[in-house]
C-alpha cells in the first residue's frame, strides 16, 4: 500500500511546491474573494430589507451561507480541466504517459497538493479577514462541523472528478475552452454558490437532487448551518460518497476509451 500510494503523495507534494513558486498570485486572490463576499453582502442586505426570513434563511444565516461558501471554494477549487486540456493540446501528455502511474490519480493528487496549499495560504487568511468584517455564524454544533469537514473532502473529490471528465474531452474537441467556461458558470449556479438551491424554482430543485453539483457547495453549507442533520445527514454523506466514486469511475472509463483516440501533437 505504501508503495502504491507513495508516488501520489509525491505528486501532491510537487504540486504544492510548484504553486509556492507562484505564491504572489494568491495574495491578489484574497482580495478578489473579499470583493465577491462584499458584493453579495450588499445585494442580500437590499433583498432582506423588510423581510426577516426568506426560504428558511434569515439575514445573518444568509451572510453566513455566502461567506462560508466563498471561503470553502478556496479549498475545493482546482483547474484540473485546464491542466489536462493543456497536456493534450500541447502534447505534454506524451511524457506523462511514460510514467507507471494512473493519469487520473496523478491529476487528482496534484489537485490535492494544490488544495492543501490553498487551505494554508488562502482559505485560512481569507476566512480570517471575512470573519473579522462580516457577522458570520459558527457551525451549528460539533457534530455538524465534523460532518461539514467530511463533506468538504467529498466536495473536493467531486469537483476534481468532474474537471477530469471535462479535461479529457480535449481528446475529441479541438478547443475545450468554451466547454470549460460553460462548466464554470454551470457549477457556480448549480452548486448553490451564488444562490441557495432551495431558492430555485421547484422543478430545478427537484432536478438538482439528482445531480452531483449541489454537493460541492450547497450541501456542505447546509450541514455547516445545521439545516441538514440527524438521519438525513448520514444519507447525504452517503450520497456524496457515492457521487465521488461514480464520477471517479466515469473518469476512469472515459479516459480508458479516449486514450485509443489520443493524438499527440508536435515533437
Amino acid at each position: 500500500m505504501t508503495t502504491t500510494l507513495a508516488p501520489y503523495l509525491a505528486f501532491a507534494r510537487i504540486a504544492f511546491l510548484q504553486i509556492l513558486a507562484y505564491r504572489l498570485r494568491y495574495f491578489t486572490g484574497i482580495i478578489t474573494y473579499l470583493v465577491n463576499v462584499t458584493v453579495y453582502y450588499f445585494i442580500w442586505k437590499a433583498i432582506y430589507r423588510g423581510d426577516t426570513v426568506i426560504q428558511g434563511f434569515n439575514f445573518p444565516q444568509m451572510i453566513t451561507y455566502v461567506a462560508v461558501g466563498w471561503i470553502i471554494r478556496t479549498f475545493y477549487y482546482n483547474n484540473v480541466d485546464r491542466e489536462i486540456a493543456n497536456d493534450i493540446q500541447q502534447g505534454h501528455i506524451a511524457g506523462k504517459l511514460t510514467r507507471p502511474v494512473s493519469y487520473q490519480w496523478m491529476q487528482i493528487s496534484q489537485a490535492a497538493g494544490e488544495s492543501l496549499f490553498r487551505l494554508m495560504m488562502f482559505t485560512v487568511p481569507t476566512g480570517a479577514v471575512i470573519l473579522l468584517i462580516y457577522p458570520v455564524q459558527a457551525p451549528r454544533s460539533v457534530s455538524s462541523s465534523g460532518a461539514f469537514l467530511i463533506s468538504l473532502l467529498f466536495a473536493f473529490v467531486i469537483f476534481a472528478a468532474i474537471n477530469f471528465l471535462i479535461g479529457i474531452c480535449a481528446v475529441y474537441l479541438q478547443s475545450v475552452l468554451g466547454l470549460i467556461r460553460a462548466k464554470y458558470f454551470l457549477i457556480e449556479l448549480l452548486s448553490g454558490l451564488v444562490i441557495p438551491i432551495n431558492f430555485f424554482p421547484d422543478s430545478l430543485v427537484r432536478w438538482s437532487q439528482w445531480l452531483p453539483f449541489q454537493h460541492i457547495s450547497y450541501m456542505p453549507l447546509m450541514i455547516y448551518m445545521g439545516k441538514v442533520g440527524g438521519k438525513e445527514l448520514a444519507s447525504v454523506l452517503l450520497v456524496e460518497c457515492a457521487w465521488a466514486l461514480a464520477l471517479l469511475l466515469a473518469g476512469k472509463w472515459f479516459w480508458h476509451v479516449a486514450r485509443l483516440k489520443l493524438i499527440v501533437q508536435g515533437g
Partner: protein
Amino acid sequence: MSLIEVRNLSKIFKTFDRKEGVWGGIQNLFVRQYRDLKAVDAISFSIDQGEMVGYIGANGAGKSTTIKMLTGILVPTSGAIKVGGYIPFRDRNSYTRTIGVVFGQRTQLWWDIAVVESFQLLKKIYNVSDKDYQERLETFDQVLNLKRLLHTPVRKLSLGQRMRCDLAASLLHNPMILFLDEPTIGLDVVAKENVRQFLRRVNQELKVTVLLTTHDLSDIEELCRRIMIIDKGRLLFDGALAELRERLACKSQVLLELKEPGKVNPAALGLNSDIEFKQLDEMRCQFIFDKRIVPSAELIKIVVNSLPVRDVVLEDTTIEEIVREIYSRGGIE
C-alpha cells in the same frame, strides 16, 4: 528472441480537410470529409538487447509516432509490438517501469522548481532505494556534471543543461531500454558531444539498449552501428551505417564563389576524374565528390590555389539527400 519485436506496425490518423472562408467554416461544422493519414505504414524490425540503433527520417516521416507507439503512449492501428515480453499500450503500467524516455523537444522535469525535486518525485514513482538513487546520481554526475544544476529551477537552465538533467532523470530507475526522441535537437556542439559521450557510456557500461531518433547524421555516425531510415511512414533502410554508405555513394559538395565572372575549365585543375563539376552561373560553381575517394581538404586546397576564389562552402550529405537518393534509385538495392 529479440528485445524489441515490431511486426507490420501501422498508425493511421484521421484528419479532416478544413474548408476555407466563412461559408467553408460553417460547412465544417456539419460535414467533414475525413482523410486517412498513414503516419506509420506496415513497418517491421527487431532490436536485440544491448544494441544502439539510430532511427532517422525527415520531419513528419513517422519517427516520433513510432517511438510513441513503442513507449505505450499511442495505440497502434494495426500490427504488433512486443518489448521484453510486454505489449506497450496494453501493459503500460508495468511496461513503463522498464523503459526510459526522453523527448528532446520538451522537458519532463517540473518547470518552476529545482531539478532535484523532480528527481525525488521520480525516485518515489519508481520506488528506487536511497542507496541506488545516490549511486546512480554519482555515476551520472561523472559525465553530466549534474551536481551544480540540481538546485536550480528547470526554467533557468540552458537547453544543454536541461537535456543533461532530462537524460539523468530518464535513467534513475535503471531501465532496460532508453528511447530518445531528438535528444540533440537545438544543442550546441559542446552540449551535443556531452550527450553523445553519455549515451555511449550508458550503452556500453550500463548495457542499456538505446533507440534514438535524430535529424543529425553525425549523431548516428558517432553512436550507432545500425540505422533505420523511415520516410512517409515506410521503412526504407535497416542495416549498418557502413553498408548504407557503401551502397549509396555519399556525395559531398563544395560550392565556390569566384572573385570575378568567368568560366572555369575543370580539366585545367588536374582533379580526380570522379569529381563532378558544374558551373552554376558566371560567379558560382560546384564540385560534387565522394569524401572516401577525395578528402575535402585536398580538393579545397587545389581549388583555392588555382582559382580566384572569394568564398568556399563545404556541404555534407544530409539525411534528406540520402532519402532523396534512395528514392531516385527506387529503393536501396
